[in-house]
């Protein structure tokens, strides 16, 4: 065996992706793994730059220029499909004009292994490629497990948040959600209408027909309120039979009056429940939050409460929009007790 053959054999083991080029740039010998990339097209005898497109350094087009680039990193790509990209390093060979180019997959190794059905036997035992593939797979498996956990936790978090802001019986927003919505409108400087709604005669339904009837009534009420308001409005159940509706960009008391009238009209119709009939109605007090005025939200809520009290005092089943005069007459009658106090008697 001559020196040349001994070198080729050694290179086949040490660098199975090498290629030996003659002075004209033709392939004299190709390593076994490299040849495996093109099992049906013998590389030996073809011009190296016809098999590979040299991507970088870009200026090189001739074999002389390529030989001059000995020792620098080459970026190459197979010219026919699959157009695998490889990295290369060229060194002068044993004889004048001969070059040895060693190639490696670099970043494209993951795709290459599956494209060409490579096994660990195709890589030198000292090559870290197999370790890298192992790391990629191990990392992907671990990341996938963590990604699934993330999605589960996110789902749970969304559900928990939803629950924390929802009244489970009616599906309406709860008091917390309402506070949140109000705070945002205040932040944005949105003018909004506020309706405080108390159900009339609801306690009687609960007492005479039982809680199941009461629950049915509350669900019906919730549906009516949602149907009679816009998507941008917020309907919240803030107490047993107490509701609040926030109407962003409400123009004035008249605009809300139409909505209030329809709600009272619909809630005053008897609600059938298991052969019985539940009769309720609603009292409404409304006020407007105007960011241009100096009034705080708490003051506006109190205004709406005073108006609600006037509706109740006026015989229930009616609505009142707040005007300052109400406060004086309300004081003469009895102070509003605040909404946490049971008003029905």
């Amino acid at each position, binding site marked *: 065996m001559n020196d040349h053959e001994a070198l080729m054999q050694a290179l086949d083991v040490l660098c199975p992706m090498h290629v030996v080029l003659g002075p004209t740039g033709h392939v004299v010998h190709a390593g076994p793994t490299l040849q495996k990339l093109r099992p049906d097209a013998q590389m030996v005898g073809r011009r190296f730059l016809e098999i590979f497109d040299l991507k*970088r350094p*870009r200026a090189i087009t001739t074999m002389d220029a390529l030989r001059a680039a000995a020792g620098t*990193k080459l*970026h190459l790509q197979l010219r026919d499909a699959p157009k695998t990209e490889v990295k290369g390093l060229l060194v002068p060979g044993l004889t004048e004009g001969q070059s040895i180019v060693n190639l490696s997959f*670099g*970043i*494209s190794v*993951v795709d290459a292994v599956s494209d060409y059905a490579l096994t660990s036997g195709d890589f030198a035992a000292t090559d870290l490629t197999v370790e890298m593939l192992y790391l*990629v797979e191990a*990392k*992907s498996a671990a*990341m*996938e497990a*963590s*990604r699934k956990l*993330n*999605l589960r936790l*996110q789902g749970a978090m969304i559900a928990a948040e939803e629950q924390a802001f929802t009244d489970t019986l009616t599906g309406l927003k709860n008091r917390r959600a309402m506070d949140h919505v109000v705070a945002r409108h205040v*932040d944005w400087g949105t003018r909004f209408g506020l309706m405080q709604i108390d159900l009339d005669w609801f306690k009687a339904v609960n007492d005479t027909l039982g809680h199941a009837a009461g629950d049915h009534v509350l669900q019906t009420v919730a549906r009516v309120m949602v149907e009679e308001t816009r998507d941008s409005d917020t309907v919240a159940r803030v107490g047993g039979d107490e509701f609040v509706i926030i109407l962003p960009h409400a123009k004035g008391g008249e605009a809300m009056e139409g909505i209030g009238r329809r709600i009272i009209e619909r809630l005053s119709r008897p609600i059938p429940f298991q052969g019985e009939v539940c009769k309720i109605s609603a009292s409404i007090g409304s006020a407007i939050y105007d960011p241009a005025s100096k009034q705080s939200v708490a003051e506006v809520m109190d205004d709406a409460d005073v108006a609600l009290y006037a509706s109740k005092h006026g015989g229930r089943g009616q609505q009142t929009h707040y005007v300052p005069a109400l406060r004086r007459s309300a004081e003469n009658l009895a102070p509003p007790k605040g909404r946490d106090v049971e008003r029905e008697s």
Partner: protein
Amino acid sequence: MHGLINRAIQCFVTDSYGADKWVEATRIADLDFVEFEAMLTYDDDITPRLLDAISNVLNRPRSDVMEDMGTYLVSHPNVEALRRLLRFGGVTFVEFLHSLDDLPDRARLAVSDLNLPRIELRDHSPTHFSLICESPMVGYGHVMMGILRTMADDYGALALLEHTGGGDGIETISVTLVETEFAAGRAFDLGARAS
């Protein structure tokens, strides 16, 4: 948009301008939350809205904000890992520029659902390059400007950069290399472990 990108924006604003500015920006952008999770995916329309809100809060043009973000990403001690990963791209600034072609693939190797915009480097001469950046989000080229400017310093190279405009989801940066060894640059040790 991937949580990593949104999270990077959050860290940039918080570390550079304080948590208050960040909270204000999330409110203007009409987000329901203030904290992005790095490993979750968010609606694509959130990110541009957020960037406009930040520009609004900081009272600076969006392109300036995005370039500062690029600088932040490769210079702030809190995100040192990113600078290190980029330095793996090459021993010299020119090699680093060439490695940007591989960046989206490398990123996907690490996080399979992270899709970074494609970048293509064209070399017109040994000292003059164009970086063609796919730009799904207007201003992405400015982020790259900030990154390149800072990485040039990092390598000790002196480079002139110019954002030469864009359109149709592509933005172009012209890079002129004045000197490759202008200054000492920052040290990079391949084997140093990120702490």
